[in-house]
């Protein structure tokens, strides 16, 4: 049972991470290759708070806020650079986070932070993570239908056109970065308390790409697709224990294959199948 609970918790954390990134990259069109840095910021901030003796809820909220505030900073930077320039800048943010944390003695350098107090049991973390993931799914679905979601879509499609019809492009970009990175920070805070030990390498470039993989394999921009992508990529290594040694080989090949054959991900595939089924259904005599 413990095993299933921890898989469920990690699945939920991945859903939170992927939906956060989807809000930035899918809804608002700002490609980010450094999402793991915000996961890490949340984890480190929450861990420091808990080690300092602050209560668990305060620590988790602090992790969220720290990640969100740095997200705003990157969002402001995203106003200066666009598209491919932005992709490389966000990749740089990831390397910068990692390179700085690795050298800080007060953050434990390469060894990270250990002995983080753990106030909940396995059930507690699972329920908390799943609850947060469900809340984020609902928020994500709501945002998509709201004025904000439509403004995000306009920014994603054509920034200049959006600006010309009076949409506050800068404001919406920063908002997307804040919500998305704060979600990553929340996941980081839960992760740090659950595992009770964090090391810099847990938040490296491969982790950023893994989160991006969940988004693109699920179908960038589609909330339910991204949830499916996150669950799929969480379960895959668990179901196929034997691929553990080849995990990155399989990840890489999967990323390549999805981009090459179905760039719209699982969501695109489902839509295509549904259309085909509908077309077939239409031809059948009533």
């Amino acid at each position, binding site marked *: 049972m413990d095993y299933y609970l921890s898989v469920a918790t990690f699945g939920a954390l991945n859903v939170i991470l992927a939906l956060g990134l989807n809000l930035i*990259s899918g809804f608002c069109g700002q*490609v980010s290759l450094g999402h793991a840095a915000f996961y890490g910021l949340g984890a480190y901030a929450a861990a420091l708070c808990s080690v300092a003796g602050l209560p668990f809820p305060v620590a988790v909220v602090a992790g969220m806020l720290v990640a969100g505030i740095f997200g705003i900073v990157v969002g402001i*930077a995203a106003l*200066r*650079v*666009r*598209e*491919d*320039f932005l*992709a*490389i*800048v966000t*990749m*740089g*943010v990831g*390397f*910068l986070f*990692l*390179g*700085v944390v*690795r*050298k800080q003695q007060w953050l434990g350098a390469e060894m990270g932070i250990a002995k983080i107090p753990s106030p909940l049991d396995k059930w507690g973390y699972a329920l908390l993570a799943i609850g947060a993931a469900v809340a984020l799914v609902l928020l994500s679905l709501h945002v998509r239908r709201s004025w904000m979601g439509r403004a995000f879509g306009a920014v994603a499609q054509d920034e200049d056109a959006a600006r010309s019809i009076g949409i506050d492009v800068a404001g919406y970009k920063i908002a997307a970065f804040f919500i998305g990175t704060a979600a990553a920070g929340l996941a980081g805070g839960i992760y740090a308390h659950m595992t009770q030990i964090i090391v810099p390498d847990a938040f490296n*470039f*491969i982790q950023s*790409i893994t989160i*991006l*993989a969940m988004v*693109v394999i699920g179908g*960038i921009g589609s909330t339910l697709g991204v949830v499916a992508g996150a669950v799929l990529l969480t379960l895959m290594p668990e179901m196929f224990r034997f691929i553990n*040694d*080849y*995990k*990155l*080989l*399989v*990840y*890489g*090949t*999967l*990323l*390549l*294959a999805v*981009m*090459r054959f179905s*760039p719209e991900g699982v969501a695109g595939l489902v839509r295509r199948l549904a259309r085909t089924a509908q077309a077939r259904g239409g031809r059948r005599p009533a």
Partner: protein
Amino acid sequence: MFYVELLLVGLVWGCTYAMMALGLTLVYGLLRILHVAQATVFTLGAYVGLLVANHTGSLALAFVAAALAAGALGPLIYRLIYQPILDKPPFVALVASIGVLIAMEDGFRLMFGPSGLSFADNTWFTTTYSLAGMVLNLVQVWIVAAAVLLLSAFAVFAARTRAGVAWRATVSDPQMAESFGVGVIGVRYLNFLIASLLAGVAGVLVGLLNNLVEPGMGGVISYKGLAIIVLGGLGNVPGTLVASLLLGVVESYGSVFLDRVMDRDAIAFLFLIIVLMVRPQGLLGKAH
């Protein structure tokens, strides 16, 4: 003297970055793809070079074999992966490219072991010269020589030959070039061939410099290559060369003075971010 030595070491690294980044900027200039998988070409070159060198004892053969292997892999990546998704949004090719990199890095690990291989007889590494109190080894000398030679050869090719003119015409206006009878597809293959040859040779040189060839050696240098082409103003060849040397030198000084604050990779990207905040179009890029 210490500072001059740092400058020299930085310039040597800058030359390896230049060999890597020129290819990346060529690919970007033509197809608007951030070709991360160039790292795979680089690492393949290094492994092939090492295996040939250790079996035959000849470095010349090693370079030829590495260039051939790399020169085959690059155009193959274009044909099998990029060509079918050229009309998709740019992140599609980028993610596919990262997929190739991650998968192949693991592939190299499974094939040749995680800890890497060393050259059996690395005479370039052990041959050193003292110059006014500074010590350089022959690999470092060759890196500079190779960068100067290969990049000059590229400059002559682009300026003087028919194929070079066709290449430049295609970069500046593919449709116009095509209607003047330039084979655009051929130019693309040529582009990947040049980029891959440079990366393969750079791979062997970096392998010799560290006396180690390991699965992850291409990753970081390729990410930095992307930082460099962005720094130079995407698709801008002179900008890329300036940015390569500059980044090498900044890293070299930075890793001494900022050692307590951040590591080498972080210095490179911090520099990138600072420059882009001041000049969002890159060092020599044109303003939008």
